[in-house]
């Protein structure tokens, strides 16, 4: 049975408290983002049902939102997710070279996770960092002005954390 820890529950309650009485459904998107952080970076049906119960809404209300927004992972992902922007401004600065380099380096295709479960590669649409292209999101932060050397550094940095 999935459940928030006491600390997590406190944080969850803070999120819900931002909205007026009876409008707790507004907390759904922030709650799902938080749940993703708490439960292995993806939303299983069990997690979504749990959030529905916490917010006193139906499960279908959670599913329809979770399937709409691109930041919700509906299947397991690696410990570190590389989300490389591929829209126009990043494309003209060499986003494709970066994507190809990561594929070769990690021996995975876009959408796949390395067998050790460490890295997932995704392509995403514009992240609002066009002046610092090519770039990717990795966890909470942006990694900008990417080059193959910089990708190597990032992979080394993350691998050495383990």
């Amino acid at each position, binding site marked *: 049975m999935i459940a928030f820890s006491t600390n997590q529950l406190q944080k969850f309650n803070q999120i819900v408290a931002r909205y007026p009485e009876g409008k707790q*459904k507004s907390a759904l998107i922030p709650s799902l983002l938080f749940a993703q952080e708490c439960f292995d970076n993806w939303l299983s049906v069990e997690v979504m049902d749990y959030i529905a119960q916490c917010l006193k809404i139906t499960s279908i209300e959670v599913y329809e939102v979770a399937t*709409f927004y691109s930041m919700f992972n509906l299947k397991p992902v690696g410990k570190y997710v590389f989300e490389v922007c591929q829209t126009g401004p990043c494309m003209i600065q060499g986003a494709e070279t970066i994507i190809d380099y990561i594929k070769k380096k990690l021996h995975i295709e876009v959408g796949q996770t390395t067998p050790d479960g460490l890295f997932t590669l995704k392509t995403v*649409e*514009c992240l609002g960092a066009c002046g610092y292209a090519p770039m990717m999101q990795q966890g909470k932060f942006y990694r900008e002005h990417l080059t193959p050397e910089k990708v190597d550094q990032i992979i080394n940095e993350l691998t050495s954390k383990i």
Partner: protein
Amino acid sequence: MGVQLLLDKISVKDIQLYDVYRAEGGYSSVEKALKLKPEDIVEEVKKSGLRGRGGAGFPTGMKWSFIAKPSGVPRHLVCNADESEPGTFKDRFLMEKIPHLLIEGLIVSSFALGSNTTYIYIRGEYAWIVDILEQAISEAEQHGWLGKNILGTGFDCNIYVQRGAGAYICGEETALIESLEGKRGNPRIKPPFPAVEGLWRRPTVVNNVETIAAVVPIINIGAEAYSKIGVGRSTGTKLISACGNINKPGVYEIDMTISVEDFVYSKDYCGGIKNNKKLKACIPGGSSVPILPANLLFNTADGKTRYMNYESLSEGGFATGSMLGSGGFIVLDEDQCIVKHTYTLARFYRHESCGQCSPCREGTGWMEKILLKFLNGEGRHNDIDLLWEIQSKIEGNTICPLGDAAAWPVAAAIRHFRHEFEQKIKI
């Protein structure tokens, strides 16, 4: 450099911290505004000529004056920080570098609109900026600028930050409101407009980050002085985020009297085209606005100098002009393939279509597929006409402007660069 109203303090060390910001005169607009009547502030913003900085350019004061005031119903101000239009990264810069400017503007604007609970809806990917904003909010609270009975006026206000979760469509104000209510970001049919029935069916105003920030200098220097900066109906200053094949990508504040040519070549701004290449084309106001070839960028079709403002950039209509839009300035050099660039934009809009309206849901995917055909050298001559026909049937036939936003880049690429499509036709 021209007049700086928003970024004038940006180089002050630690300006993101409350003490530094306050020492530089921060929050003085709150002191000034809270002595006024809310309706006088609305009037002041009207007089300033400020237009919405998110892209549509609708007069802000007028938008504010539409807010309904049924008795006993709370009203809300929602700040649109869902910056997602390709080429646009100005709000991010402002929130990261000088977060208190936004908070200050939100307090004044909340007072003017009678919003006791104000939300900042920020795109989910800007996750670290949420911490910056929450820190600024908590500092403002500690110093009495937020919370109960602000400056002893009896006005209460709290600001909360709400993260989105990856959906361009939530930059559209009614989709944003749906999302803030915990739903899919499907735009609503208007009317009713948010000013009458918005968040939780309460009167709501949704304003872009830069728009709210601009309220601070308007109060500080007065509407009259503000309206004298710029030209015609393009008053005040505008943030431009410049990217693409230029020497100095970044965020610049301009006073809307600078010519497009100076903006591209001046060392104070873009610094010219990278690697001494030739300029081929430019999308001057975010990915949705029409692309302009070099010859129509610096001068209008009848030979007048083009300036970086609302009127001049749109001169000539869509036939030979474009739009200032969000200020997302994307520069393409001679080596760039227009068909390929347009393909990435078509893919973007297909990905971001919410799926409510058939012309947009089906049309965006169809355009993407045809553009891919051209890229693979499989395009046929009648595919250019087909592409034109599809975009023309999306435009104006959807609930929200995403349909138009998807159609315009394709239309402009064909209008000005038809030869590049023809070169990719399978013979």
